[in-house]
């Protein structure tokens, strides 16, 4: 019974079926399956499948996004039970506010990172494109996030990535948020220069960077950034 429910939950995520995922999540609770187990052994396994298929070129961006939506619905449904279990998933994996900075309407890179973060178990709040620096901080404060991710494809929008971290510092909030930057022209050198906490060359690298940051437990803004950078060959 339990295995069947977990398998159904996994399949609902793989099928990107929000309604079915919520329905099975409720069944899991009714069957006495701990919320954390339902997430990790059911829904989370579905995300693993989608992530692997995407990496192999067998699944595409829409599936990543929709599977992330289904996962979010499951987390919403199981959130109360998770809190009661006192082992909140978001505390374990992180809550991310992500967007493309001011002056830039490119969204595909940001969308891929957001979707990959979601299918890796992060709670992701995508605040869109052309986002003003303070809006990142405002949303992170509102949601109680612990990671802020800022993307851009434009060299002329890179200064806004610096503005976000400066706004955090000037607001006395720098130590609350890991700050991660990425995008086409963004380099490891730039991430270091603006005192970001992390940077990845690819979308998958960005996820790995976020995982390492959360796992490190260090105070944001107080350590050498976690960088997975472009090969210098």
């Amino acid at each position, binding site marked *: 019974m339990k295995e069947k429910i977990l398998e159904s939950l996994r399949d609902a995520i793989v099928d990107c079926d929000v309604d079915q995922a919520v329905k099975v999540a409720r069944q899991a609770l009714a069957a006495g399956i701990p919320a954390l187990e339902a997430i990790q052994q059911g829904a989370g396994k579905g995300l693993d499948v989608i992530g692997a298929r995407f990496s192999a*070129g067998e699944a595409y*961006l*829409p599936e990543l996004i929709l599977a992330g939506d289904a996962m979010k619905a499951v987390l919403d449904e199981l959130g109360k039970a998770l809190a009661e279990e006192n082992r909140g998933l978001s505390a374990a994996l992180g809550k991310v506010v992500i967007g493309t900075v001011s002056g830039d309407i490119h969204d595909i890179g940001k969308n891929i990172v957001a979707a990959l973060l979601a299918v890796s178990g992060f709670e992701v709040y995508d605040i869109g494109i052309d986002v003003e620096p303070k809006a990142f901080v405002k949303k992170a404060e509102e949601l109680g996030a612990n990671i802020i991710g800022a993307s851009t494809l*434009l060299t002329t929008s890179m200064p806004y990535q610096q503005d976000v971290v400066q706004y955090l510092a000037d607001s006395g909030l720098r130590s609350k948020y890991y700050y991660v930057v990425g995008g086409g*022209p963004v380099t490891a050198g730039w991430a270091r220069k603006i005192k970001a906490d992390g940077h990845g060359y690819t979308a998958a690298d960005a996820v790995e960077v976020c995982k390492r940051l959360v796992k490190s437990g260090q105070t944001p803004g107080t350590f050498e950034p976690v960088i997975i950078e*472009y090969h210098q060959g």
Partner: protein
Amino acid sequence: MSLRTEKILRSLDRAYTGPVCSVKDWDTRVIPNTIMAKLKQYGLEKTCDTENPINCDDELADQFYKAGYELALEIGMLNVDTERIIKIEEDELLDTLRHKPAEITLGSGADSVVLKARKPEDPAFPLLAASLGIVVSEELYVPIVEGIVKYRELVDVLHGPSIATVYGRQIRSGTPYETLMGRYEIELRREALWRAGRPGMANTGVAGAVTQYGHLGGAASISGPGNVTMALCPVELKTNFSVFHRIMMAINYDMRIRAGGFSYIGGYAGPPEGAALANVAVDLLIATILDSDYTSSYVYDIHLLGNCGRKALWANSVAIQAVSRNTRLIRNKIVNETGGPCTDMFMYEAAVGLMNHCVSGASKTTQPRSAGGKFTDYLTPMECWWCGEVFKSCAGMTRQQANEIAKQVLPKYEEQLKNPPKGKSVQECFDLKEMRPSPEYQKLYLDVRKELMGLGMPLDKIYNNVALPR
């Protein structure tokens, strides 16, 4: 009111009155579902042949055209600012296909060039615009551009590069700095063209303009039908008011319109076949909805951050051939290299990618994307010259010949596609006073050139007419 104005206003009106659709619904349901259904309907699923990356099958290309034509009529383009779909009628598309000029003149006087529609295996030389918007330092802008346009036989149109600062100030997109930069970049380009003795060379857009502000800032300085505005649409099959601003600017300043929309393998369009199909549709839609004189759309692989891998080569070949064989639309097709200056990887990527575009029927390309366009000053004239040499030399080759060469060159670089070499900056591998590559870069060029000629690439076609480094 001109016919062009009437067409654009019709599209703009539809951006306010067309069917409502959210961006998310468009990206995650409408685009993937419609494209996958169309692929299935035409039996085009799993037709990507990575063992033969340059398509040689006319029937397959024609099937992609038919499916892309239907897709264009069925789906239209989403205007993201109003979240409404701009749809077109079949008679409008047919009007585009019947009446769009098959050749246009760019530039002026002795520096003018004719941009023509081409067919697959066409012996006519395609044109090369250089460079892409790679960022270079303000103080290096003029000498780099002077070097880029040095050889009339290789580079036909000036497109870039982008400038890092304006009067020493950091440029922030969407601000008055960007507006000021628009005019400033054009002034620097003029100086470089004058120094190179090519003052009438055509300009495309303002390379550093990332919003309409930069374009509007520079438009008055490059007005007239010899120059071209540049409007790039969001992926996939979307447009926005920033694009319309640039189109209106072209109308106001009597400029040519180059508009593009890209298709991503692994993105909303899905597999290589889906991206190829979307690319056919976007060429037809942009020419109609935005009334472009020519389009600049291509397929890109989001897993490789470029388009020189087998899947993207195949998708570009079939998409370009589909439209080349069935229309007389003029199209600019870009190769996105990932290797940097002074690397054999860049030279191989450019050779295979441009050979593919040339034999498939592209009219023009814009090059190079050295080091993926990621690093400031990682652009030299040498990459531009190499791209011109390869792209033009391949005119008249058969697709079979090109495919055989591609199969031999791909193994030389494809393992590095996910981790390409950064290469060297312009200061490290090019002498901007003598306008020559460094001895190391020159040797690399000569070695790779000889190697590719040994494989059958007819590079002597251009080389013997130009005083290239020897």
